[in-house]
């Protein structure tokens, strides 16, 4: 089937079997291997990308269902010369060991900070109507769909808090 995906502002015209997941379309058909395949069952979050600005597990979605959608992967967030604030913060705080989960962590955190900005509550929010804040507990809860096999969680949380604080300062 013919599918057009706009990945990081570039249009990709792909001919795909309906079984191809969005993850496999991104990696094997569009050739963008920054997005990782971990469990391939929606449990680890390594495949997290943003679709029309929202984070999803790309392994649990069919590419044919995303015809016309705008997808952002880790390659679209920053470049080695111009890192995104979260990419820079992960390096600053050493928010990884092996790095395999990192693209998913950073895509997830990028969208998660927007969810906080939009005032979405979480399971650990004391009230449903208060302002959402990027505290350690809130970040841990909101990032629970991204596993890190090396258990670099303390520094992942530190990176996200750093990027969130920098954005507050800039605002």
């Amino acid at each position, binding site marked *: 089937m013919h599918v057009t995906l706009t990945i990081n502002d570039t249009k990709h015209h792909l001919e795909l079997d309906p079984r191809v997941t969005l993850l496999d379309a991104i990696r094997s058909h569009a050739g963008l291997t920054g997005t990782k395949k971990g469990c391939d069952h929606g449990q680890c979050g390594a495949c997290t990308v943003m679709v029309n600005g*929202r984070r999803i597990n790309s392994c649990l979605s069919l590419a044919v269902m995303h015809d016309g959608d705008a997808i952002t992967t880790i390659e679209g967030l920053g470049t080695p010369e111009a890192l995104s604030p979260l990419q820079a913060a992960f390096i600053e705080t050493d928010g990884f060991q092996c790095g395999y989960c990192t693209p998913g962590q950073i895509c997830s955190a990028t969208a998660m900070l927007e969810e906080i900005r939009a005032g979405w509550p979480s399971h650990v929010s004391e009230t449903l109507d208060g302002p959402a804040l990027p505290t350690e507990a809130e970040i841990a809860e909101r990032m629970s769909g991204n596993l890190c096999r090396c258990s670099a969680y303390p520094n992942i949380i530190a990176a996200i808090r750093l990027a969130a604080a920098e954005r507050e300062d800039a605002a």
Partner: protein
Amino acid sequence: MRAFDYIRAGSCTEALAEAEVPGTAFIAGGTNLLDLMKHEVMAPARLVDISRLDLGGITLTEAGLRIGALVPNSDLAADPLLRRHWPLLSRALLAGASGQLRNKATTGGNLLQRTRCYYFYDTAMPCNKREPGSGCAAIGGFNRIHAILGASDQCIATHPSDMAVALRALSAEVELLAPGGGRRQVPLAQFYRLPGDTPHLETVLEPGEMVAAVLLPPAEGGRQIYRKVRDRASYAFALVSVAACLRMEGGRIAAAALAFGGLAHMPWRSADVEGALIGEVPSAALFDRAGDLLLAEAKGHGDNDFKIPLARRTLAAVLAEACAEEMPA
């Protein structure tokens, strides 16, 4: 994954017509269905994509709140009306899955998700739900997450949804569309089936029927609480959960609606438990009596025996919290 034909429906009428072909399944969020298809637990020959149909939106009506079947779990949890008047439902949604999954999973799909019984997922093992008549490997197997209420000798699976437990306590109804243009409304109380001899039949949905919306009656005052007990702090299914809507009047319990997750093949509710609480002055003895009534027929299968005392304690804790402001010291 087995091969399938993919059809993107342009309208509900078209989707319902396509669904009349045997072997067809609807797909919206796909977060559970695609996982099951990868494991070949489910292998529909045709997938009808309903994700772009006009079945979204959250609308306040005189009859209550109408939630379109395609509203993602994350949007529903964050909806201002819900947060204000039905916080129980927001809380239950936020207690389920992960941020990524809630962005994709829909209201209708959440209701229809399948059990996470390990043996249902493992195609090398017998499972009456997956393959009727093949047996149940959970009975006598490892059954830590399995049912203690309403199970049968054919199946002891539990329903995994948190959202459905809250909806059960809120007396929600489900609006269904049928091929040919029929439309009917089913109370959630009658939507799910117990396993009995037909564990492969989980709801009263007829072949080709589609969930169009979930309807909530107007919110009643009082406390709304969702408490979920699980093996880790986040991103895990409930071992036991309690959804409570409780209103006090003059030191007595005036209204109580309680639904339970993790205990049965469907969200569980007991008229006996609620009847025993209504009109009474809250006390530890009363909560204990409610636990007795809830668990009178409970049956453990070994690894899940712990759910019986856990359900009792969780119920008592939720009732104490709900009545806290007016409990005698």
